[in-house]
């Protein structure tokens, strides 16, 4: 390079200046690409290292991941950060070494069983806290600890299989619906209201809280009754009709 510049310099300042700039631009571009290549190399190297570190970590903390719901959740979040899904089904490091995929599959099966056996009683809806309680009972005291988050994760996996599980509401008050059929925002609103008063609502309650038209209230209550989720009670103090939800009755008490 220097030699060329040297020869060019002998010809004159103007020509060499332009060419120099051109050459510098070319140099910079190629060097810029080189830089990017180096950076990419480094990054993918880092990712590979990170990935293998994660695998090592998982193998070393297998028991912890299996036993401790909080630890498990943090580990999953860590994986999500680098775009790894430890719950991906099928063969591979994750499902074989960790057995995590199987873990949620197993939970899913148990949850489905609980929903099926309680369906005659609650019409296909169950409070997530009750579902969790029953799951713990099914698994017994020697089984791994399972959190409500684990229940949600297992349910979302089930949803992917198209088994029609839906979560209504938020947080600990969530209700799991395991039957097909229409449950819209209005229905959810009534369920939410019922949860606050030991599983019962009256036409008047709904009116005073949501201020809906009478026909709308009647429609929703009738639908929920028809679906077998609500029972009708006419022996009430003011002779109004009360609608009780077995799914939300006595939840929180020792059932």
């Amino acid at each position, binding site marked *: 390079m220097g030699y060329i510049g040297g020869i060019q310099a002998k010809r004159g300042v103007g020509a060499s200046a332009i060419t120099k700039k051109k050459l510098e631009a070319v140099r910079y571009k190629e060097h810029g690409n080189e830089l990017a290549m180096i950076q990419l190399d480094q990054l993918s190297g880092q990712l590979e290292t990170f990935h293998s570190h994660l695998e090592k970590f998982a193998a070393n903390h297998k028991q912890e991941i299996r036993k401790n719901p909080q630890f498990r959740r943090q580990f999953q979040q860590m994986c999500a950060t680098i775009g790894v899904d430890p719950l991906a089904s099928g063969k591979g490091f994750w499902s074989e070494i960790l057995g995590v995929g199987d873990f949620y599959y197993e939970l899913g099966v148990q949850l489905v069983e609980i929903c099926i056996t309680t369906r005659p009683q609650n019409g296909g809806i169950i409070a997530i806290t009750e579902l969790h309680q029953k799951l713990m009972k099914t698994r017994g005291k020697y089984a791994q600890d399972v959190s409500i988050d684990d229940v949600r994760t297992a349910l979302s996996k089930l949803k992917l299989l198209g088994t029609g599980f839906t979560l209504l509401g938020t947080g600990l008050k969530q209700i799991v619906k395991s039957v097909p059929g229409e449950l819209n925002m209005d229905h959810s609103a009534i369920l939410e209201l019922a949860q606050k008063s030991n599983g019962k609502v009256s036409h008047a309650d709904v009116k005073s809280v949501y201020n809906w038209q009478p026909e709308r209230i009647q429609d929703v209550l009738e639908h929920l*009754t*028809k679906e*077998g989720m609500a*029972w009708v*009670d006419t022996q009430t103090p003011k002779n109004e009709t009360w609608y009780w939800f077995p799914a939300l009755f*006595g939840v929180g008490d020792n059932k």
Partner: protein
Amino acid sequence: MGTTSNFRWPWQYDFPPFFTMQKNADTRFKQTEAWCSLILDYHNHHKLFRLRVTDVLASPLFYNKAIDRRLTKPDVIEILSILHKKGNIEWEDKEKTVCKVFWKTPAQWSDIIFKWVNQSGLNNTVCTLHEITNGPHSSDQEFYALDDQILMQAIQILQASGKAELMGTEGVKFFT
């Protein structure tokens, strides 16, 4: 009689709508089935073999004081007619004021009694009817204090299949 305490009420018993006959057909079915089971379990636990409709309306079985809910007489009659179809009750009068309650059918009783006879080695001996249901060797048995008429029906079933023979009005001999 049996103890009123320690009878385990099913979850429905404390559920207020359980005492309102549901209009929804599926729910109605679940409700009546639950009532049928409850009535039989209740009579089983308290060793009751007879039900008088007017009496039972005011009893804890059909009136849950704690939640102030009760079944009406028409409701009770409806449920009893379902039990009748199932063979678990027998009306004693045309007016349907009193009925016998078979929390086990006479056929079921005959099986249980015959099993006990075999286990106790009482085959080919003569027992009195009284000692079967009130004897010292049956005090821990389900059929202890069983109603006389039901016992007789059970023995007659065994007799019909050659497993027993009535001896007079008080005795019975069991075969192997």
